């Protein structure tokens, strides 16, 4: 049958231990794939794609004046994680976000970690997203990162490594939820028999978090919580609307809000109505033209003043970007040791800092073997994949690194684990990562699974939706098989 011809090749494969041995937690899926033929697969895929298109589970393609909306390609074969493996991941993620929240509180207050020379101060004080003007400012419940989407990858031996912490406005949670709904429709019997931990709680948990961090001045009143979007033209608008609907809160744009006497109001049919908590899906720079980019038309003049006055809460807080700078990433394992006195459960990918003289020499000598990333880019942009790059690209990065070493890090290429993925006529191995979603409120919770992104192009390691990536449903089982 189709899956019998599958070739795991020389990679860590999520499903196959070797060419003939299916890992125990994929047992039921293997059985189901045994009886799946091309025609049935095509029917199911078409049904799923059509449902996504119809219900508008799409992203807007930029640089296209037709306003084209595309679906995020969805692969029907789910990625599976056994319970015991998940527990370790969950523990590691909670450990990491706890340390990161402590770190943010520290650097916006006493900066002990800098004074103790665990992190050289210039890395933090010179970081692009460090918000000096928020020194000494207290955020509700001392939580800076309320919503985090951490990118995990697996190396050749199947070890989970942290590739990136996304601490500003991580996206994709809606796809996690929509993918699950789609998969349940496509394979109801398989889903039921596999015993999978549900993800449906995400929106309810998120709403709890947002209510939990409402301004202390509000006392016990129910806060008015809103989701703030850059607007309908943003590529993630579907997600914004989806989450707002799931939480039952209004979705607002900058033009719906106005600030008077350091309080935020929304413009409603009953006049101006107060806003207490804003789940903002808009970067710091665009929040308030008074303080950050004066040319931004997306934000609200006076919003930062209201925030500083403690009259409105923002999730995530302003200034979290300093902790997902790729240079600061290098120091996260040290933060875990420093603040928690623990060994990191989930290690980083081995990283070199271009601004450290020794590292820089190594980077420059091995540019053709390394992956180079700029410190503040996301979405797979501003990257050099040494082993696959042309001579010109390598030389261009050499120049850039020389000019501004603080802006670059380098890593050994990790050959990401692979997963059987439908490729037109049968299953082939494609590289995957995993983005679990962590919510930090009264307690810290991790939704079981997350979003598995898959690089659909043969051999590609880039999983970003903007660059030919797709996604899979991600199952965490109740047991280990």
């Amino acid at each position, binding site marked *: 049958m189709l899956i019998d011809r599958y070739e795991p090749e020389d990679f860590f494969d999520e499903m196959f231990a070797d060419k003939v041995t299916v890992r125990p937690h994929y047992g039921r899926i293997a059985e189901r794939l045994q009886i799946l033929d091309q025609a049935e697969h095509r029917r199911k895929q078409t049904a799923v794609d059509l449902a996504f*298109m*119809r*219900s*508008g589970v799409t992203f807007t393609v930029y640089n296209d004046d037709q306003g084209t909306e595309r679906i995020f390609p969805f692969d029907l074969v789910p990625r599976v994680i056994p319970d015991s493996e998940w527990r370790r991941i969950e523990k590691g993620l909670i450990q990491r976000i706890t340390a990161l929240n402590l770190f943010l509180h520290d650097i916006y207050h006493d900066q002990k970690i800098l004074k103790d020379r665990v992190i050289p101060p210039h890395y933090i004080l010179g970081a692009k997203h460090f918000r000096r003007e928020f020194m000494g400012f207290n955020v509700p419940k001392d939580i800076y990162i309320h919503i985090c989407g951490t990118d995990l990858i697996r190396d050749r031996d199947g070890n989970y490594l942290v590739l990136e912490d996304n601490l500003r406005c991580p996206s994709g949670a809606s796809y996690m939820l929509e993918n699950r709904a789609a998969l349940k429709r496509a394979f109801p019997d398989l889903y039921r028999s596999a015993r999978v931990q549900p993800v449906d709680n995400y929106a309810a948990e998120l709403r709890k978090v947002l209510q939990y961090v409402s301004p202390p001045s509000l006392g016990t*009143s*129910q*806060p*008015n919580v809103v*989701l703030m979007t850059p607007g*309908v033209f943003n590529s993630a*608008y*579907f997600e914004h*609307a*989806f989450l*707002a*609907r799931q939480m*039952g*809160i*209004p*979705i*607002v*744009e900058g*033009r*719906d809000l*106005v*600030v*008077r*006497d*350091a309080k935020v*109001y*929304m*413009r*409603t*049919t*009953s*006049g*101006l*109505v*107060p806003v*207490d908590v804003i789940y903002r899906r808009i970067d710091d720079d665009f929040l308030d*033209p*008074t303080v950050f980019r*004066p040319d931004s*038309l997306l934000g609200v*003049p*006076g919003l930062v*003043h209201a925030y*500083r*006055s403690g009259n409105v809460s923002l999730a995530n807080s302003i200034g979290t970007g300093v902790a997902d700078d790729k240079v600061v990433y290098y120091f996260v394992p040290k933060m875990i040791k420093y603040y928690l006195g623990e060994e990191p459960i989930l290690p980083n990918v081995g990283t070199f800092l271009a601004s450290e003289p020794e590292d820089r020499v190594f980077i420059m000598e091995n540019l053709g073997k390394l992956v180079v990333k700029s410190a503040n880019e996301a979405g797979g942009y501003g990257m050099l994949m040494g082993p696959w790059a042309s001579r010109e690209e390598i030389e261009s990065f050499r120049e850039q690194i020389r000019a501004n070493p603080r802006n670059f890090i380098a890593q050994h290429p990790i050959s990401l684990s692979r997963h059987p993925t439908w490729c037109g006529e049968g299953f082939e191995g494609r590289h995957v990562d995993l983005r679990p979603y962590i919510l930090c409120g009264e307690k810290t919770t991790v939704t079981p699974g997350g979003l598995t992104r898959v690089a659909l192009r043969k051999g590609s390691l880039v999983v970003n939706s903007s660059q030919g990536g797709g996604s899979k449903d991600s199952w965490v089982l109740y047991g280990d098989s």
Partner: protein
Amino acid sequence: MSDFNTPVPTAQKPISDRRDSQVMLSRVANSLYWMSRYIERSENVARLLDVNLQLMLDFADLNDQQLKEHWLPILCSAGDEETFFRLYERADSESVTEFLTFREENPNSIISCLFTARENARQVRDQISLEMFEALNECYLFLKSKNAREVWQSGAHEFYEQIKKYSHLFQGITASTFTRSEGYEFMNIGKFLERADKTTRILDIKYHILLPSIADVGGAVDAAQWQAILRSASALEAYRKFHVEDILPKKVAEFLIFSTTFPRSIRACMQRLDEDLHCLSGKERREYRSPEERAFGKLLSDLNFLTIDEIQNSGLHQFLQGVQTVLDRLDDHIYQEYMYHPPVDIQAEILLHQQQMQQQQ
């Protein structure tokens, strides 16, 4: 320190202390209103075109002038003749139906109406039910596909049937999945305002039609045209239930203006509007809060007491225009009252907040 060049922030609407999940953004109210209005409009345009294309089948061999005389009033009823003659030289079945169906340059073509409705729905996706969005989105995807024109070319009737079905489906889904709340009122007001307005325009078409000759009044052409008017308002069968005799112009006008039971008559639409307006304003019945609402209330009361003879004596066309004016002013009033907020001058706001921040430091 005041400089008379310093921009001053615009005064905003009064502050309310509502903290409940029922508050509705003005932008959302506006989108719901227009989404609903445009869907209703598309349905009316579809019906109008369908009926008139069929009517043309009864009149073969019309010359250019006659074709123009038939189609021009229909264009006028949509108020788009200027845009039309920028795009086409001749007003005939082909050009007028294409213009009113597919031309995106015409904001009131079926395709423009439904694209705008869908864009409004996208703006308020968090407010409407998933089923409502899906119904509208399916219609949008159909119109965006090549299939749409193919269906139209192979049989315009099927195409317009499909458009009407999308509208009915949407309204049915709304009735069975949408919370009865403020948003529902805005959607209803959009729908009934549009419907009442379109009924006046459909009825007014006969005013614009230059009769071929006096002898034809009461003749076969005249009767067919009045029948087409009824069908354009989806009212032929309802009319027949009330009037067993022939289709008489006066009875048609009376039915489309005064019926309390036929849901597309001007009076029936206005009665619904009256209820929804009061739900929104929270005022007692027969209490009206603004000159526009009072003018509306007065017209409704006229409809309760006037007779068709009185209307005809003072001029049907004038009366219908009067209705349109009242509805237009009501539309503007609703916008001002619930949807409009004074614009924010970004530069003035920036200055204001910078000053406030400095004072605090």
